[in-house]
């Protein structure tokens, strides 16, 4: 074979270029146009830790999915913006859609914010998959028919589950109940749901105290004194921000929890701050859709928890699961529509495909219902301080699926509480 000098030099040049820039010959994913995912999550204030956990999880998810071919062969690129007030978050949502030209926006934790952003998503005809936001006005669904907005499970799921477990573990010991719940619709509805479920189970308990601290109240000594004075035998609290560890610390120091059973349906958000020194055992402890130490955890969860705890030296909570689930549901929808059409699907094809996909999320299986509301797996149980961490884990793990804990499409929540077949 004759090789000319020119052909030899050209061959050497190409080989040299290939050696210097290996990415040029990497799989097609590297050359494909990225799928741009806008993320809206709180990074400061009372919800800062919560948003941060979700952001870390979605970054982990994107990295893992990208190694595995991204979404239908296209790499995932995240564009992260902060969730703050409804007005400012709506502006950032518009920026993501109109300027950043993202394919999908995910995130939102506060229902106060998501109620404002959802109509904007409909107006802009932009796909929005919420982590923890709903479009509930109180317990009433404000957007029964959404075209572009996928919502999280109902806010009351954790309260319903904690109420059922309170009955399961403490029925016969609940005579005098007290509530300390955040003073907005979430706290008020959870407290009301707890009482109604007790009544349905035939537990006739006297309400001896109701406390409604403003979110972020950090001096709760007077609230603790008021609860103590009422002498409850059961305390229900759906506090979920930095005020929950403060309440438990101040309550423990004042002897509030001696001889009292407790339900904390949303405690998982503050897991790293709820130290054993002030946490009583046998608390009905809610981990929502991710219990980091689940004995039967999937390999996916185990890999995530190991990476997360190794990197950040703290336990992840359910916002990580919500963030992963949103991205996984979108990926599943796109890939299903891609398979059906043989091309990159249009937005309406993706939206139509998402509700049919069963997704393996960090905390377990989940899917979106046809009305674009999520159904996931919930974990709660009785707490124990016998572990190697400096915060409680669960001695018994109960898990329910969302269809057991949330109202079906089109049904009033209070009617459902009265008539549904409850799993306990």
């Amino acid at each position: 074979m004759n090789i000319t000098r020119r052909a030899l030099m050209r061959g050497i040049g190409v080989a040299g270029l290939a050696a210097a820039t290996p990415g040029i010959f990497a799989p097609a994913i590297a050359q494909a146009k990225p799928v741009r995912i806008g993320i809206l999550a709180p990074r400061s204030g009372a919800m800062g830790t919560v948003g941060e956990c979700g952001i870390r999880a979605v970054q982990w998810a994107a990295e893992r999915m990208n190694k595995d071919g991204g979404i239908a062969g296209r790499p995932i690129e995240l564009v992260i913006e902060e969730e703050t007030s409804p007005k400012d978050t709506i502006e950032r949502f518009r920026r993501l859609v109109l300027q950043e030209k993202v394919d999908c926006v995910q995130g939102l934790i506060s229902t106060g914010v998501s109620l404002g952003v959802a109509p904007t998503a409909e107006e802009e005809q932009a796909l929005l998959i919420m982590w923890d936001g709903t479009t509930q006005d109180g317990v009433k669904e404000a957007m029964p028919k959404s075209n572009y907005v996928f919502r999280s499970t109902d806010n009351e799921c954790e309260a319903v589950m904690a109420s059922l477990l309170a009955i399961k573990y403490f029925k016969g010991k609940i005579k005098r109940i007290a509530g300390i719940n955040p003073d907005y619709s979430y706290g008020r509805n959870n407290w009301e749901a707890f009482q109604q479920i007790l009544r349905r189970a035939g537990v006739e308990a006297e309400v001896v105290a109701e406390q409604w601290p403003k979110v972020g109240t950090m001096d709760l000594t007077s609230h603790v004194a008021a609860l103590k004075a009422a002498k409850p035998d059961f305390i229900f609290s759906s506090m979920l921000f930095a005020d929950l560890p403060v309440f438990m610390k101040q309550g423990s120091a004042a002897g509030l929890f001696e001889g009292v059973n407790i339900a904390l349906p949303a405690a998982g958000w503050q897991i790293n701050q709820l130290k054993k020194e002030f946490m009583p055992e046998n608390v009905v402890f809610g981990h929502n859709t991710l219990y980091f130490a689940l004995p039967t955890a999937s390999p996916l969860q185990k890999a995530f928890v190991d990476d997360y705890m190794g990197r950040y030296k703290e336990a992840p909570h359910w916002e990580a699961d919500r963030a992963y689930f949103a991205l996984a549901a979108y990926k599943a929808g796109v890939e299903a529509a891609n398979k059906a059409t043989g091309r990159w699907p249009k937005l309406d094809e993706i939206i139509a495909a998402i509700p049919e996909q069963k997704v393996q999320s960090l905390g377990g299986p989940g899917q979106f219902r046809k009305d674009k509301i999520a159904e996931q797996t919930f974990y709660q149980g009785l707490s124990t301080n016998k572990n190697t961490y400096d915060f409680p884990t669960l001695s018994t793990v109960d898990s329910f699926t969302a269809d057991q804990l949330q109202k079906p499409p089109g049904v009033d929540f209070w009617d459902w509480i009265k008539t549904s077949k409850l799993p306990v």
Partner: protein
Amino acid sequence: MTVFLDVLLGGVFHAAILFLVAAGLQLVFGVQKIVNLACGSFYALGAYFGITAVGFAAQLGLPSILVLPVLILAGLAIGLVGLPVERVLRTIYNRDESYQLLITFGFLLMFQDVFRFFWGATPRTLDNAYLVYGTAEFLGVQVPTYNLLVIAASIAIALGLGLFLQRTRMGRIIRATAENRNMTEAMGVDSNRIFAAVFTVGCMLGTVGGALVVPASASSLDMAVELVVEAFAVVVIGGLGSMRGALAGALIVGLIRAAAIMVLPEAEILSIYVVVIAVLILRPAGLFGRAVA
């Protein structure tokens, strides 16, 4: 009886912290005639720095029983930030009061970003310091010993401040400067030095208050603004510029809040401001303030 004591102790603990911040506010207004909106920032600064100081003390191997003195020293040390802040305020002493309000409001907002930069945006807590001293039995009521120590520290600071202002030469000069700055300057007093000292002491009262509260609660970006609102209720009730007013106002606000939480929790804020409005209508100068012609 135990219920009453529980409410009383809860209210007095809150009042003890409020007093320290309000006393700083009163001292600065009494002498410098500046309504210092940044007092809430000094309170928050004390809380954040207290957490850092306790962490540092733990690294040095100091026993956890020393958490209270460490926090007080941390509050006093970081209170020195009052010196450079006062140097900035000095540029507008002779201007209209609205400038002073605006510049201290500017500091209040700027400090939020300082906290965000150094300590991050998420609330921070001192996990177990609150329980280091255990609990005490007080007339049949179980109460965290730390709360009693904070109340005692606050009373000691109030007495010390009162003695300093009433019985020392420096205290007399400060009171004279508050009465008539021109006269004291004519007598050779360097009012700039007096102002710097007073502002720094006022700042220290706030930072010590913040440092003392943090084991029982948490530091957060919002705590500065939230406290300013309550501190001003104290000042309006007690009378602007009066130290006795700060004490009385803090007790009134703390106890009303505690009683409202017990009887009608929804009226926690409302009950305080009903009293504020009543004082403004019936006694505009406050309980211990002097009416201005």
